[in-house]
């Protein structure tokens, strides 16, 4: 008996005549400068309930130290470089946790004892209002998913106009990591009678800190 794979390929090959690629070029190509990209991104992200702040590059730790206690959030999870920087300057009222162990060893803590996850981002997409995150050893996938609040740090000079341009400009096809993610707002659903509700399975709040070079 031939395998399922063989049967399927036989059927497909019998009817396929390979054709060369003929795809029309991209349609919606604007030529936005950085300030326009920041503006569009802010507008798109705010429209889907993300909270966006514009800060000078060195000020984000100050923002975290000031805002978290005010919002009654204290248990902060970070990884890699972000965790290193926080370790040095983080307020004493914040309990900083470093994502350094495989998830199996502390799943329950991650799910139950973290208020905020903070991550860097690879960049963003102005057109759709999306952050792009690549999973790394330092900043694992669940860091931006499990905690009820996600703070994302974004450098203003890393915003691309649209998704296609980002993929092309950065040649993503040469080096796709374990997980690539676009995040456009806090988790949401409209599955109950079409009523929009936030924070169903992922973060209830997404806070984007756009960092501009001083």
């Amino acid at each position, binding site marked *: 008996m031939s*395998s*399922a*794979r063989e049967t*399927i*390929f036989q*059927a*497909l*090959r019998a*009817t*396929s005549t*390979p*054709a060369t*690629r*003929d*795809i*029309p070029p*991209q*349609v*919606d190509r604007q030529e936005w400068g950085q300030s326009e990209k920041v503006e569009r991104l802010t507008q*798109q992200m705010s429209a*889907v309930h993300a909270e966006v702040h514009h800060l000078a590059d060195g000020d984000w730790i100050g923002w975290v130290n000031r805002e978290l206690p005010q919002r009654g959030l204290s248990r902060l999870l970070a990884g890699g470089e972000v965790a290193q920087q926080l370790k040095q300057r983080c307020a004493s009222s914040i309990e900083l946790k470093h*994502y350094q*162990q*495989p*998830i199996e060893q502390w*799943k*329950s803590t991650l799910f139950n004892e973290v208020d905020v996850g903070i991550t860097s981002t690879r960049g963003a997409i102005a*057109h759709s*209002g*999306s952050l792009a995150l690549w999973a790394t*050893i330092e900043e*694992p*996938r*669940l860091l931006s*998913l499990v905690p009820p609040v996600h703070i994302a740090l974004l450098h203003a000079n890393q915003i691309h106009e649209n*998704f*296609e341009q980002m*993929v092309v400009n950065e040649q*993503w*096809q040469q080096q*796709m990591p*374990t*997980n690539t*993610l*676009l995040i*456009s707002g*806090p*988790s*949401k*659903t*409209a*599955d*109950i*009678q*079409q009523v929009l509700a936030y*924070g*169903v*399975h*992922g*973060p209830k709040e997404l806070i984007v800190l756009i960092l501009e070079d001083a």
Partner: protein
Amino acid sequence: MSDQAAAFKHRINTALGDEQAHSNFRSAMSMLMEKRAAQFPDEDELLEKRQRANAIRAHALRNLPQLLEQLEQQLINNGIQVHWARDGAEANAIIHQLLEAAGAKSVVKGKSMVSEEIDLNHYLQQHGIEILESDLGEFIIQLAHETPSHIVMPAIHKTKQDIAELFHKHFPELPYSEDVDEMTQQARQILRDRFRQADAGISGVNFMVAETGTLCLVENEGNGRMSTTVPPLHIAVTGIEKVVEKLTDVPPLLDLLTKSATGQPITTYFNMISHPRQAGELDGPEAVHLVLLDNGRSHIKRDEVLLDTLRCIRCGSCINHCPVYVQVGGHAYGTVYPGPIGTVLEPMRLGIDQIGTLTSACSLCGACAQVCPVQIPLPKLINRLRADSVSHQNHSGVKGEGSLRKQAEVLSWKGWRWLYSSPLRYRLFSKLATRLRGLTPSSIGGWSRYRTVTKPAPRPLSELIKEAGFDHE
């Protein structure tokens, strides 16, 4: 009336009798149509985008075996294991074996229409595996033991009161609430523990990229990310047609998918998976498997007209714009895929002899083809299947071809052709019909229930024209 036609009529009557569901569908569909339209303010730009998306999908289908081979090789290089299934039974068995080999007893699942197509949940439950839908809409209908009534919004037929009662019945420890935010938080609480404890996650796939070996998932809730990141094992299942060649093919399709489906510029999450957990990484599944399902797709591909169906990216906008769907809703179709796309897919999948009458529930208004992001000519395909269902030749290759052919209908058409193909016979007939107009019955079954029966005019048009002195012909 055939059994399937009677059953379809019964489902339609049930649907039309449910005022609440009817009004839910109506308001939901108008909202979705409005939201979609707002995303595409420029008609010309939209047309260009649709042409481009069409070209991307058509290219992938023309090169399907080559791209599937490339995809398989790339996935294997990336550490993702690939399995092939000719039909639903094979896919279910493969998934069950993978779970058994891993000792997995509890599974969380992201939304997947292919898993509905193969009835995966029942199969796994029968084999002692606990499987929980984690998309809120799917979770709701799983609690209610129902099937999705829409491919994008599975619980659209339910009111918040229905859902509140359902939650209360299954989770009596939680306070009763009809508040949507509160119910959403309750679902979050219930499912969080399940994500944490699950042995495996199962998901569908929206696009597969041959060039990079990447599986792309589109979602708003985060349950898809949970299901594919927290448990140690991830099994993805999807149809073989979902492949595209290049990573740059994905952005234009994603753009049209979310805007067409729900009028969102993009969904909250776009999740691209290219590897299982790599050395040193701290989370993500240790093993990722992809089950590729044929289930009639390679057969559809043999037909150069019906092949267009395989371009579908499952946005559901044809459903949202269908004047039939909006009246009867998804369950009336009695199939996994409802609406225009279901009307084409399901007779091909299940056979015209089983479900071919679906093609009669279409006014050929063309709204579906007008909004389809990949330009599938749905009315043309529905018409083609109508022809196949009454055909007396046996050449189309669609299962159950000719099974809806009725002798009475054949004879009527033959008689019509006999009358209309000869000017003399036609003239005699029209004379006779006009002179005997007094004998027209006042009731002719279903047709006259809501309409008055048309009587022939006292004299045929051709006679009046002649008298008026126009030139003949």
